């Protein structure tokens, strides 16, 4: 407990939330309890992930000051927003935060422009901020329209712009895509990625969709029944075997790669990461660009590897000649780190280390026995398919 008495402390690049909140079950249901003690990075996107009812939204509302907590300590990049021990509580409208609600929350009696002006009138937003934001979310055309005449995706883009125009020091997003259909989601996701790339504001992003979290988050908090199960960088958290994420049907690793080559002849694109290279169908993405890939555990096959092959990272060329003939293109040298039960008793989950990058592979228990797989064994991870998170 290193709490400072002044409302500014040294934790300039962290968000600290120590919150307890209990509802007495006045509706006849058992009372809900939120008990969270988190220290989060004060930059990038932190995904709050969990089933509905796990307390994600309540936590976000506590951080916004919209929910009355029993006890709470909250500090955002050095600014103390709440400290119940010292009876210190900054009301929502004095917190430098932006909040994007689940459903479009534009004021229906104001046009798009008036909705945006509502925000900037109350925060001294400069013209250049205005232009950048309007441009970043592509809403210049919508200014004169009323919210009722916007599509769901447009409304949410305006709501995000409005939140950004308050010049927040923390942006809270409560399942901003959940009210949208798949096509609208795809329309908004690139804008969210731009926020991530172009803004310095830390974002807390609530979602129960693992694909959104995998695509956007740098850091993940896993929530269940009002508690946090785990909190850590996305790439390591997703491959942890002790968490329920490893049991889910769509369990898998996310790896960060760099585009290194385009193969015009075969319309392929090569992506490098610490464990080797992966070839995927060509997309118009510039060389040197970072790209996230999701490798589902169910799409990774394991093949025994002689240690002599271990030196070879030339995985993209000619490996078929060395390893028999198959159409498979992506083969990564790895070592088994650990093994755990998967959701179905027929399956077993392997955690693999590919030169520092962790992968998951889900194979049948029988295959595991036939190959006599144990931790420490050298294997090839054969990747059937990858999902580009872009």
């Amino acid at each position, binding site marked *: 407990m290193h709490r400072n008495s002044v409302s500014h402390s040294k934790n300039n690049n962290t968000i600290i939330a120590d919150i307890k909140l209990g509802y007495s079950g006045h509706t006849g249901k058992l009372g809900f309890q939120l008990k969270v003690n988190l220290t989060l990075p004060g930059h990038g996107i932190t995904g709050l992930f969990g089933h509905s009812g796990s307390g994600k939204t309540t936590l976000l509302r506590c951080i916004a000051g919209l929910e009355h907590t029993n006890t709470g300590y909250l500090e955002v990049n050095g600014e103390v927003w709440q400290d119940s021990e010292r009876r210190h509580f900054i009301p929502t409208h004095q917190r430098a935060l932006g909040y994007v*609600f689940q459903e479009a929350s534009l*004021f*229906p009696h104001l046009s798009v422009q008036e909705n945006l002006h509502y925000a900037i009138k*109350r*925060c001294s937003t400069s013209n250049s901020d205005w232009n950048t934001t309007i441009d970043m979310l592509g809403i210049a055309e919508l200014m004169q329209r009323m919210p009722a005449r916007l599509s769901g995706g447009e409304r949410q883009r305006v709501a995000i712009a409005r939140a950004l125009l*308050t010049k927040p020091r923390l942006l809270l997003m409560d399942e901003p895509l959940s009210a949208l259909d798949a096509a609208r989601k795809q329309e908004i996701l690139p804008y969210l990625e731009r926020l991530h790339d172009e803004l310095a504001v830390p974002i807390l992003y609530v979602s129960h969709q693992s694909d959104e979290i995998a695509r956007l988050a740098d850091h993940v908090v896993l929530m269940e029944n009002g508690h946090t199960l785990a909190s850590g960088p996305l790439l390591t958290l997703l491959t942890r075997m002790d968490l329920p994420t490893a049991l889910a049907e769509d369990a898998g690793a996310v790896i960060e790669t760099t585009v290194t080559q385009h193969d015009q002849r075969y319309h392929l694109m090569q992506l490098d990461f610490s464990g080797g290279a992966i070839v995927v169908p060509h997309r118009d993405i510039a060389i040197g660009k970072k790209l996230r890939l999701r490798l589902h555990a169910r799409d990774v096959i394991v093949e025994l590897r002689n240690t002599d092959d271990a030196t070879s990272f030339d995985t993209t060329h000619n490996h078929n000649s060395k390893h028999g003939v198959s159409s498979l293109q992506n083969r990564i040298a790895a070592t088994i780190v650990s093994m755990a039960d998967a959701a179905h008793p027929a399956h077993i989950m392997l955690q693999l280390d590919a030169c520092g990058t962790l992968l998951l592979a889900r194979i049948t228990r029988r295959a595991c026995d036939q190959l006599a797989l144990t931790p420490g064994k050298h294997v090839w991870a054969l990747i059937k398919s990858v999902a580009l998170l872009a």
Partner: protein
Amino acid sequence: MYITADDWGAIRLTLTLASLVTVLLLAIGTPIAWWLATTRSRSKDWICAIVALPLVLPPTVIGFYLLIAMGPHGPIGRITQALGLGVLPFTFSGLVVASVFYSMPFVIQPLQNAFEAIGPRPMEVAASLRASPLDAFFTVAIPLAKPGFVTAAILGFAHTVGEFGVVLMIGGSIPGKTRVLSMQIYEHVESMDYTQAHILAAVMLAFSFIVLLLMYRNGRRDRHDDDHHHSYHNHTPRDHQNGSA
């Protein structure tokens, strides 16, 4: 067949009274309605019941109690005397005070319904955009509750125009002071002057019908305009058919 100077006086007095009462009620009723719409306090039910009393009580009962309260020995009477205003019964001021009590549910209930229909979300959004609660109340809650205000004003006005029993108890029938339209009609009937009674009764009937027609049109046009979010506006007043005028 024409309207006499006395009749015009009664009409003018009625309109003055109704306008004044409507303005006062909107001013007093708005904070009460907001409190009722947003509070989690247990005393809410008590206040709701008290506000709704004029809907079910005979006007004579309300008038009787107000007469006593405003009389020289009543609590209101003592205050008004202490302030140097004298006693209120059988004065225009007394009529205004009594009408405010009597028409209160007709203003508060539509406002409360409108505020409840807005829900907490728009106010939370406003807070997240740095609007203080008071700022948000004027820039978000009141504009969103506008149809409720229109209904409240129309009902408050029309109900004050139409009251009789309370006027009889508190105001009596002093020409130019407390003899409002409904009293004037009563006087005409008492003196067997049916022609004049007919004219004024027809004026009242037409007025009331037009007012209600306007109110329902207001409600419908509004729902049509914002069909995407009409849950924001639900301002049908409860029980206003119970009013005895």
